[in-house]
């Protein structure tokens, strides 16, 4: 039992410290380690990956939490998620200390601005990547409508309601048509 928890902590820390790029990068790594370390087969991990995507919250955290839950119940999931988040949190806590060191302190304003603009670029790239992956024109149209609504200052919960109405309504409409046909 203890060995199981130690494995969860060890793998959680390793994944948290070594995976850059979120769940799409973490998934193959978890798929590789699950059979040997946790006696889970790859198809079980595939199922948990699908669940991780449809759950609210960060998908990487959900996937790893679901794997750990399967292996060692709720205590395992808690330990696993804490271990996964620990490395990045420690880095985040330590990074501002660097800004107090001589040359870095003198240039911290410019460095911060450079980092902020790099973030703008990364965020833009994430959005464009999402567009590239859309397979249907109606998804693109929905994204454009939501973008305009957001730019007009409409709250994101209202935008979410629009999504529910558009997609849910379309699905219900199609199922009714299927029944009547």
């Amino acid at each position, binding site marked *: 039992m203890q060995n199981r928890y130690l494995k969860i902590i060890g793998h959680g820390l390793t994944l948290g410290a070594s995976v850059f790029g979120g769940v799409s990068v973490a998934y193959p790594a978890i798929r590789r380690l699950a059979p040997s370390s946790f006696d889970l087969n790859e198809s079980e991990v595939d199922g948990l990956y699908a669940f991780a995507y449809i759950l609210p919250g960060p998908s990487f955290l959900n996937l790893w939490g679901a794997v750990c839950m399967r292996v060692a119940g709720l205590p395992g999931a808690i330990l696993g998620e804490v271990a996964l988040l620990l490395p990045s949190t420690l880095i*985040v806590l330590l990074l*501002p200390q660097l800004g107090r060191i001589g040359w870095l302190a003198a240039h911290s304003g410019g460095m911060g601005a450079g980092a902020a603009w790099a973030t703008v670029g990364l965020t833009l790239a994430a959005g464009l990547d999402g567009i590239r992956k859309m397979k249907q024109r109606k*998804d693109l149209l929905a994204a454009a409508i939501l973008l305009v609504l957001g730019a007009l200052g409409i709250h994101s919960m209202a935008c979410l309601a629009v999504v529910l109405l558009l997609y849910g309504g379309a699905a219900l409409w199609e199922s009714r048509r299927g029944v009547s046909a």
Partner: protein
Amino acid sequence: MLLKLFLTVLSLASYSFGGASVILAGLERELVQSGQLSAHQFGVAVAMGNATPGPLAAYVPAIGQMMAGPTGALVALAPLILVSLAAIILIRLVPRDWFDRPLLKAILRGMVPFAVALTLLVAGRLAVGSGLQPLGIMIALVAAGARFFKVPAVAIVLAGITVGAFFL
């Protein structure tokens, strides 16, 4: 402030179907547009998150740290774990075939354009909030192009920091 931060992250994480970008957009709206953080501070915090390994949502504790120091980081982190654990527990109670229903599938598909629109909106708002400097825009465009060619986010952030240190 800590309680508000906790509740804000908790509510955003609870409906963040579509991943970390939906939480990002919500935090930008709640914190930057309400004046609790400047667009610059928000951008720096997200950059810190991007430069660290682990889940993409590592920017959440960075934002907490920016607002209220180490305590803020931990307070911002807790709701992410709580929502994830609650979701994992609840999902075990739901029958498997429920996820094959067309209505749920359609709604989940709708989360993709939702996340895309919010992400692009955040990029635009951060750019406007950072003052639309020509060199900054150049950094952003090069960063977006580099990401398209799969350059790791951490390398892009470090390059942005280096250019910013000398020229901004």
